């Protein structure tokens, strides 16, 4: 069913997400700190043995993946937060207003994508300060492109979160979601090791992980190169997969949200 969209409704739901994000400083700080631990400890600890991959040192290699981790967790959880809106009743306030559910959920998705992208920008800056990137004109230009990529990646994952949140009933599912969806997606995304030269089953698993393409895209933006497996057109393949994933997930999230119970 096609529902009329209301710009103001989309905007106000987005605004609420931003306000709530801004106020949940503890959450922001802890997720940034977590990423710093990964970069610092793995970068220093493993980096010594590994040296690096694809011509960059291990810290630089990991940085796009760790940014991706912030994007992934931030966006899925902000989508899943429709559970909380329902549980705490605020959903009813939105449902009884003369605006379509599509407007509400698009606001939610845009809001979640914006906050997760802000998180990604913070992580990008932190990684930069830690020396993960080579300062150059090309890098600055790439960083701006990366912000666009982040919005595309995160809105898809917020859509996934909304789809999950509209289907699941309760908080208990959170733990399962984290263990069986988020962590495998994160670890298979190529954050710690490149896909090239891995055993075939692992390569297949990685190629099935949508986050793999997100990280690949970020790596092209920030480091100017990707995996050998996808080749020189890796950025285009990744962009296409991320875009298709985005469209599918936003549609699925919108559909499941529209038919969910409050």
């Amino acid at each position, binding site marked *: 069913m096609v529902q009329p969209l209301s710009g103001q409704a989309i905007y106000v739901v987005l605004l609420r997400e931003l306000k709530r994000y801004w106020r949940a400083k503890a959450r922001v700080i802890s997720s940034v700190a977590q990423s710093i631990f990964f970069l610092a400890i793995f970068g220093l600890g493993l980096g010594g043995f590994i040296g690096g991959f694809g011509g960059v040192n291990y810290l630089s290699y990991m940085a796009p993946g760790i940014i991706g981790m912030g994007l992934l967790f931030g966006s899925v959880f902000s989508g899943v937060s429709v559970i909380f809106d329902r549980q705490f009743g*605020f959903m009813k306030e939105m449902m009884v207003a003369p605006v379509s559910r599509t407007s509400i959920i698009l606001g939610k998705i845009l809001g979640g994508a914006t906050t997760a992208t802000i998180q990604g920008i913070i992580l990008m800056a932190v990684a930069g300060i830690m020396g993960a990137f080579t300062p150059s004109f090309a890098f600055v230009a790439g960083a701006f492109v990366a912000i666009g990529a982040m919005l595309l990646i995160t809105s898809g994952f917020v859509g996934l979160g909304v789809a999950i949140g509209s289907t699941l009933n309760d908080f208990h599912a959170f733990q399962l979601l984290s263990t069986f969806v988020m962590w495998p997606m994160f670890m298979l995304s190529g954050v710690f090791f490149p896909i090239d030269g891995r055993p075939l089953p692992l390569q297949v698993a990685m190629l099935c992980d949508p986050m793999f393409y997100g990280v690949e895209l970020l790596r092209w933006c920030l480091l100017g190169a990707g995996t050998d497996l996808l080749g020189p057109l890796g950025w285009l393949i990744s962009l296409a997969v991320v875009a298709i994933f985005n469209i599918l997930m936003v549609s699925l999230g919108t559909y499941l949200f529209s038919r969910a119970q409050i």
Partner: protein
Amino acid sequence: MNKINTIEVKAITKIFDGDVKAVDGISFNVKEGEILGFLGPNGAGKTTTLNMLSTLLRPTSGTATVNGHDILTEPDAVRRSIGYVFQDTTLDIELTGRENLDFHGRLYGLERNTRQQRIKEVLELVQLTDRADNFVKTYSGGMKRRLEIARGLLHYPKVLFLDEPTLGLDPQTRRSIWEHILHLNQEKNVTIILTTHYTEEADYLCKRILIIDFGKIVVLDTPDNLKARLEGDVVTLLFKDPAAIETFRPLLESKDWIRRINVVNSGNNYAAMSRMMQTMPGMSSNIGMGGTVPEMDSRTIEGKRKIPEQVQQKSEQDVADKNPHFGGETCSKCLNLLVDNGGHRIPEIVKLADEAGVILESVELHKPTLDDVFLSVTGRNIREEEGSFIDMVRRHRIMQQARGRRVRG
């Protein structure tokens, strides 16, 4: 009184899952500026009716118009015409009071200037101006309720739905909410439908009362007319020994000046139980989301399941509220008589008891209240909501389903 009907309900019915009739073909009109009260126990169909009138729930059959708009064909126009204050809190507690209002104003498409001016106005109306910029999580229950009422008014609705506006509030706060409701009804000429299971609330606020039970209208009339139906006085007898009720009752039945005798049943307290189910974390997670109706848990009924502390307090509060005429005692030992000229008959009743060797602990005389009306039209006491186990299960099922229902987008 030649006012137009703001709400016209035509044979509206809601059947859940094919066989549970939550609302059973009810029709009524509400005039402009009227306060109509839905009075009935939990699960009677009050909230389901409001959800249909507010277009959140699609009726199985029948329809209604609200402010001249059909709920089936013009849901957006209906939504614009109504404010709905839900039974449970629907505020964002992470936002301030003002931000909650601002969110609402934007959602209803109010321009910036209009929005700010109206936010100021409604905050003053419910006396929350001082606390407007505090986070809602710091508000008391009564303040949250007032904020929700203010929010419901922000877009100047023609009609306001208040679902149990004072449930769980202390008497003082309840009184102040009542004053706010009356005030805005008179000041803004807002037509109001409120649901309640507090008879004194219905009596105080409503121009007319619709008693609803098992989805059907039992009676619809003004409070005074309802009470006038019970001509005479209500005499309540408290027995020392409940067993004596059965021996004494036949003696009373032979007297022609006694119009009606009602045993006031003690509750198995469905109200407290259902509230307990709603409040228990494990249960509530099933409510309203999965759509699965949880199996009635026999452990719950036997009371072995641990009851959260707050619920326990609530139930105790209920018991204390239950029958003010007996200082909070539950009435398994009471008999209600509807008597002509009650004051003059008390000596006779006492004499009768004496002769029969029945010991009366106290005798109370009062004018009929809506509690008595409810008892006489439904055969049950509204507070205790006693009934057979089957009734209880049925109500529980209806409520579960009503809560878990898909809502129209």
